[in-house]
């Protein structure tokens, strides 16, 4: 039977009509910043379903365990605390000073005298150095089993409650028919219902962005342009956030970043920008990228002044700092958004903040802590595992992205504080608010091996210790 084009058209319009209708609804809601609360209900429903699935799984596990006898009682500790206990700190060498110390202090090893006091002191020195060798060895072994850095660059460990996404389950086992059925249902819903809809919204969002860019270019008045730009930007990001079914809870809105300041946040994924921009408009600063994202960057640059640079260019850094200064000094410029970690970290910890933006002493810094709830979708972008597009698709086929944004009170650099210390202080504040582990490791370790001078540093510390014995 031949289907005529008219029939095809009617079929398509029947399918599209509800989509278009819902899309229009979403758009108006976005523009007016209202929420029907549907997403929250949806998330609560999901939570119930996940609990049910986990309960089934646990029941199965208990029945399996009781068949196999085991001596040790099951550890009720959640995985994270066990890991923190094991994390070796290269700082704790002081614990192992030898119990017996000689009274004579040895200042240099050049004395070749044969007196017994020297010899026994040397022996003790050897003993203590032996202890350190033992400690070093043990720390090395511990690091092989579990180290602090590698695990920050992969998605966080298995959750207690399984969220019906195979990608988060470490070993997929067949538990029971019910769970598999649920998983399959979830799969269908996510890929065939939610995903096309979200894709449609995404295209809409991109169109809006392009359209508004063109619109604003031809807009005459400068001031009105900025204000319009501000609102358009917010609406754009609200649409985009609905693309990912993002449920954003913002805390402490009184500390929202003001014009002419710098906003600093921890970085977990490119979606961070969208989430923060639903509430406030920013001037962005970051690495100029290629491809789709690069095009996005260039388009955005037309509506507001953003700063894009090439990280590897040394003189670029100066230029960037200068530009930032200028930008801040012009008072009605949008606040600058910057992610000082430099790379995506998996939302369990905060790594070393690069001191670049903290060197601008006249600016106030508004720290923001972004905490994702992993149960409904893991927002971390593992750039060595997924390309950006792949990542976006993963995001669009997750259940939802639930995020808590905490605005923190503004901070400025204090008298006599170096920029490194200031960076550390801000980092500690963010870590405390978001419940992250505060680490001093450089995010750049994700891609490069630590520089040789770290090792030399360790060796020097050891030497100092030997000297003071």
């Amino acid at each position, binding site marked *: 039977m031949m289907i005529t084009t008219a029939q095809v058209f009617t079929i398509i319009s029947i399918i599209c009509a509800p989509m278009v209708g819902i899309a229009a609804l979403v758009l108006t809601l976005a523009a007016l910043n209202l929420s029907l609360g549907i997403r929250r209900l949806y998330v609560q429903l999901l939570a119930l379903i996940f609990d049910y699935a986990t309960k089934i799984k646990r029941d199965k596990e208990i029945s399996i365990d009781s068949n196999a006898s*085991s*001596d*040790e009682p099951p*550890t009720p500790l959640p*995985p994270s605390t*066990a*890991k923190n*206990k*094991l994390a*070796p700190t*290269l700082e704790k060498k002081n614990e192992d000073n030898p119990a017996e110390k000689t009274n004579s202090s040895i200042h240099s*090893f*050049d004395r*070749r005298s044969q007196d017994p006091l020297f*010899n*026994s002191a*040397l*022996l003790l*020195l*050897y*003993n203590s*150095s*032996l*202890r*350190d*060798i*033992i*400690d*070093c*060895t*043990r*720390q*090395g*072994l*511990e*690091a*092989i*089993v*579990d*180290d*602090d*850095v*590698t695990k920050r660059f*992969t998605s966080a460990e298995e959750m207690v409650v399984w969220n019906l996404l195979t990608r988060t389950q*470490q070993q997929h086992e067949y538990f029971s028919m019910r769970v598999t059925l649920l998983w399959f249902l979830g799969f269908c819903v996510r890929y065939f219902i939610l995903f096309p809809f979200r894709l449609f919204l995404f295209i809409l969002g991109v169109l809006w962005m392009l359209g508004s860019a063109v619109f604003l270019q031809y807009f005459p008045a400068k001031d009105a342009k900025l204000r319009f730009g501000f609102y358009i930007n917010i609406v754009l990001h609200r649409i985009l956030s609905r693309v990912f079914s993002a449920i954003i809870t913002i805390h402490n809105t009184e500390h929202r970043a003001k014009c002419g300041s710098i906003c600093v946040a921890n970085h977990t994924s490119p979606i961070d920008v969208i989430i923060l921009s639903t509430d406030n408009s920013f001037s962005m600063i970051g690495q100029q990228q290629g491809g789709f994202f690069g095009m996005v960057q260039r388009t955005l640059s037309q509506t507001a002044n953003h700063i894009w640079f090439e990280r590897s260019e040394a003189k670029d850094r100066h230029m960037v700092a200068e530009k930032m200064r200028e930008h801040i000094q012009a008072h009605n410029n949008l606040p600058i958004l910057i992610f000082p970690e430099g790379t995506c970290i998996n939302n369990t910890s905060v790594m070393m903040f690069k001191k670049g933006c903290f060197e601008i002493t006249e600016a106030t810094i508004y720290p923001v802590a972004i905490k994702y709830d992993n149960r409904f979708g893991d927002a971390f972008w593992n750039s060595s595992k997924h390309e950006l597009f792949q990542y976006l698709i993963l995001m669009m086929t997750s259940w939802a992205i639930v995020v808590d944004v905490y605005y923190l009170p503004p901070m400025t650099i204090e008298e006599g504080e170096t920029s490194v210390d200031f960076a550390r202080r801000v980092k500690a504040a963010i870590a405390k608010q978001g419940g992250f582990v505060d680490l001093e*490791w450089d995010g750049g*370790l994700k891609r490069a*091996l*630590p520089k040789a001078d*770290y*090792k*030399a540093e*360790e*060796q*020097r510390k*050891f*030497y100092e210790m*030997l000297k003071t014995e």
Partner: protein
Amino acid sequence: FTPEELQRLYGRFQDLEKRDPPLGYITRKELLNIREVAVNPLGERLIDVILQDHGKVSIQQHLFETKRKYSSFKGDTNKINFRQFANMFALFRRDKAPTNLHKREKKLLFLFSLYDRNHDSNIDRNELIEILKLMVGGNINDEQISTIADHTIGELDVNGDLKITFEEFCATLSRIHIDEKMSMKFPS
């Protein structure tokens, strides 16, 4: 190991192995990829001990995997599979049971082999100097290190052969609670 600990350890082993498709072994490069091991002054030594002493693969298997001829076999396998990995770490598991002398001796042997790389069951002056150099780097000059090494051997050497044997080594460490210090908790 409890089943959970073993599972965790296996997960870790898999994370460390970056080969695709995974062939089931870890090499030196992958262990060096762990930042904290790379920064540890004894990191490379430790990896040497792990791979060479505990990671021996049979010659036939090695040749089969690398598809080389017997004549080019250098005797250095440089890889470790999971069973050997787990066996080695089982040595360091913190036991609730009272001190097992056999285990203690094995731990001491592990430490001894950190020094003794030519496997002649003796630590001679050069090996001692090497380890000291690894620990302090460029901070002490060679003369001073030699002095320390000589004096140490002088003190510890009982039978006068100017080398430290395994028994002499153990005697030095008898005061230190090796078992406690070389035990670690495994995540489960």
